[in-house]
Every structure is written in C-alpha cells, then in structure tokens.
C-alpha cells in the first residue's frame, strides 16, 4: 500500500475549482514530483493534502488512515509535513525559534535533529539568533526545509523549493532533497523547474488545469516529447 494515496481529489477557492479530481500515489522511500505550469493546481493539491484547505471531494489516505477531514495540525502529528509555497518562515521569530516550531509536535529530545539540520545547512547555525525575516531567500528555504525535518516527518511535501533561488542554491537544495530521502523520508516535490525535478524523481505526474495528464518514471517523462516541449523549454 502506498504511503500516500490520493483518489479523485477535488479542491478550490470559492467559485474557482482548481483541482478537478486527481489521483496519485507516493510509495514509502520515493521522491515523486508533480510538475506543471503556473496556475495548474500544484499548490492547491498540496494544500488539500495537508489540510490547509478542505478538499471538496475525493479521498486522501496517509499511512493507511483517511486524512481528508482532518485539520492541518492533526495531519502534521501523523508525520506529514508541508513546506508551503513562499516558505512560511516566521519573520518575527528567531531562526532557532523557527526550528523549535518545527519540532512543536514532539516531546522527545530534539538535540540530534538540530545537529542534523546544522550539518545539512551550516549557514543556519551561524544565524540562530537572527529574526527569520532577516534571512536571504536561499537561507529561508534552507530554514523551511530544516524546520520541516525537525518534525521527523515520514512524508515531506515541498512546494517549489527552487523558486527565486540562484542556480547554485537550487543545486544545493536538490542535493539536500536527495540526502533527506537517503535518510529515510519520502518526498512529494512540486516544481515548475521540471528539468531538475525529473532528474531526481523516481516517478512524476504532470498536472494541467487541475487534471493529471501524464505520469511515469522520472527518466521516461524527461524523454517524453510533449513534456520536453511544454516544460523543458524545447521547441
């Protein structure tokens, strides 16, 4: 059974129906990517999974349990962490406090997890006492991922972690995502940067106007002509 099973999920805002019945699976230990152009419904899909918006229909099952009626704080406790678009750093909290917020659901020792985050992102360790809002975009993205790891999630939802970052930083972030997977977490990665995402993904789904139009292994999709034309910038 997949770790995350999405069936016929529908979601939207007011009169807007942004996600029109999509289904996808994420198996334990995989990196799965959801790619699609701006406005296709990627962020809405993640929001409906993590409970930020209530699904209009369909089912979401995580680790064998239905979660489509749960509130986000309850879903986090089950081991599903969502790093939202825009990173969601608390600007008025220090970097250290942001990391502690990541561990909010835990009541065991977190020192080892802090060390692991410092090891992944040494720059954060130098800035622990700074307000989160003073970090650069790249540092904020590191903090957002590090903070999500503090919850020791089984599944990490990442919404466009490469957005607004320099190519070097994008490289770092993607290497980190692979490192996180090697350490046992499962990742559902949303990206507009399809090229990079397909390179590291085991499997991929393509979403257009709220519907899944293609799916397959990462390498297969990156060879697909339609995908190359639409998302990899080839004529």
């Amino acid at each position, binding site marked *: 059974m997949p770790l995350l099973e999405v069936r016929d999920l529908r979601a939207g805002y007011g009169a807007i129906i942004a996600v029109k019945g999509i289904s996808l699976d994420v198996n334990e230990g995989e990196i799965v990517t959801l790619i699609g152009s701006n406005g296709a419904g990627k962020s809405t899909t993640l929001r409906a999974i*993590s*409970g*930020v918006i209530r699904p209009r229909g369909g089912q979401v099952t995580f680790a064998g349990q239905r979660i489509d009626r749960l*509130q*986000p*704080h309850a879903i*986090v*406790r089950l081991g599903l*962490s*969502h790093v*939202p678009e825009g990173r*969601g750093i*608390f*600007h*008025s*909290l220090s970097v250290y*406090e942001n990391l*502690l*917020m*990541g561990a*909010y*659901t835990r009541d065991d020792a977190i020192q080892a997890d802090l060390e692991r985050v410092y090891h992944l992102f040494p720059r954060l360790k130098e800035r622990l006492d700074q307000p989160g*809002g003073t970090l650069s975009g790249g540092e904020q993205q590191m903090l957002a991922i590090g*903070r999500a790891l503090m*919850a020791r999630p089984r599944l990490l939802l990442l919404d466009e972690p490469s957005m607004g970052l320099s190519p070097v930083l994008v490289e770092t972030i993607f290497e980190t995502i692979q490192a996180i997977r090697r350490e046992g977490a499962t990742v559902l990665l949303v990206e507009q940067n399809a090229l990079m995402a397909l390179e590291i993904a085991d499997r991929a789904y393509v979403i257009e106007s709220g519907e899944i139009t293609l799916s397959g292994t990462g390498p297969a999709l990156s060879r697909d002509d339609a995908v190359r034309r639409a998302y990899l910038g080839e004529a």
Partner: protein
Amino acid sequence: MHPALTLSVSFWSDQFVNGLTTGSIYALIALGYTMVYGVLKMINFAHGEVFMLGSFAGYGALVVMGGNDLSGPVIALAILGAIIVAMAASVSASVVIERLAYRPLRNAPRLAPLISAIGVSIFLQYLVLEQTSARAKFYPDIFPRGSLSAGPFEITYIQLFLIASSVAMMALLYAIIQRTRLGRAIRAVAENPTNASLMGVDVNRTIVVVFILGAAMAGVAGVLYGLFFQTIRGSMGFIPGIKAFTAAVLGGIGSIPGAMAGGYVLGLAETVGRELLNELPGVSLGNQWRDVIAFTLLVTILIFRPTGIFAQRSTTRA
C-alpha cells in the same frame, strides 16, 4: 492656578506615583486588547466588561470571606483568594464570549465581530447594572493603611501593592510569551495562523489560550482597582476599557511590551500631564480632563501614528 503646589517637589512626585498606579491598571487591561488583536486582528470591546466581572467576582469573594471583619494576616490570604476567584471569573467569561460571540464570526467581514463585541459589552454591563439595581458596591476597606517614603516619593501600601503585583503579573506573562513553547505558538499564530497550523499548532486552542491570558490579567486588574478605588459598579469597565485600548494603541496594537509601556505613558500623561497643562497661564483643568487628555491622545495617535509611538517594524508582534 495653584502656584504653591508647583514649587512642591512632593506634589509632582505624588502625581508621578498616581500616574504609575492608574498606569498599572491600564497596562494590565491593555494586554488583553493587544494579544487578542495580535492573533485575531480584532478589537475585543467586551474586554472592559471582563475586567468589571473580575472586579465583582473578587468583591463577592472578599465579602464571603468576611468582608470588613477581616483582620490580621488573614487579609493577605483573602486578597490572594479574591484575585484567584476574579481571574477564574474573568477567564470563564472570556472563554464563553470567544466561543459564542467571536468564533462563529471568524470568517465574517471584520466589522461583524466588532459589532458582536460591542453587543456583548453592552449586554454584560446592563446585566450587572440590573443585578445590582445600578447601585455601586464597596470593596471591604481592609487594606492596611500607611505609606513608605523614599526621598521626595511617598507611596501608600496599597499603591505599592498594586504596582508591584501588576509588574509581577506582566513579567510572568512576558516570560510565558518569550520563553515557553506556548508563547512561541502564540507568536507564530499572531504572525501567520496557517503556517502555525502546518507546524502542528492547534490555532483555535491557541486563540482560546490568548483570551485566557488576557482575561487573567484583567481579573487581577479588577481586584486591584477595587482595593484601590473601593467603589465598583456595572458600568465601571467602560472608561478603563477605553483607556486601556488607548494604551494598547499608543504602544502599537499587537505589541505586548508596547501595551505595558502604553499603559504607563497614558497613566502618567493623565496625571502629570494634566498638572503640567495647569501650569500654563489661565489654564485650570479639573479631574474630568484626564479623560479628555486620554482620548485626545487616542485620536491624535490614530490619525498621525496608527502603529503606535514606539513602532519600529509592523511585523513584530511580541
């Protein structure tokens, strides 16, 4: 004009101590306004009545424990008991108000909860006025009389107690907000409720906790007010409520240290400020002018510096 007074150092130091006394009450109440605004972006105009209910509950507790017959060291215990009862009453009222009058309107236009708050305020005020036949109640006159002096400063025991317990409560609250997991969750919810929920914070529960903390401060203020001014009545929450709201605005609504500082600035402006104005030739302002000064300040701040007199960054909410 009273030129004799202007030369007296002790006159001004008395005004200063009086300013700190009323300032303490304003600051305690202002915390409830500012914290609720921090998480809900809403002015809880029923908060003055939460203060009033605490004052009445403390009064009831003192009367039950013996009222004016209390004497000796037992007085200290009775006052502590009254404070605890007042906190419990204010907290319960506030939790019920949040649940019934505000939470159902969480996603309504911003004016709706505001109107609901004013409705609750009027309801509670008239409920108590009706129950007391609109008559004042008098706190038992049990607090030891006497005063301490230090240099030009003379402070009565009750003033000292009032200021010291207010400062202690505020220090405790500040430590909770800045140093505990709960406080971090409150600050996170104030900044961004959705992101806080993604960290595993139960936003509704945290909002209730904010109402509880604010109401506890108001309950303490209610007893301190009663012990100091002695006269309480159903309408007593209105003016201190608006003054405390003014204090919160002065300090930058949403800011906790701002509300504390704003309370003292307002307390001092009303007392010392009024007497300073009286120094001007031809000016003689009676006691009622305290309110005029406070509300002139409120309007001026709202027009010229709506983020408060200490504002640095608009995102800092703690």
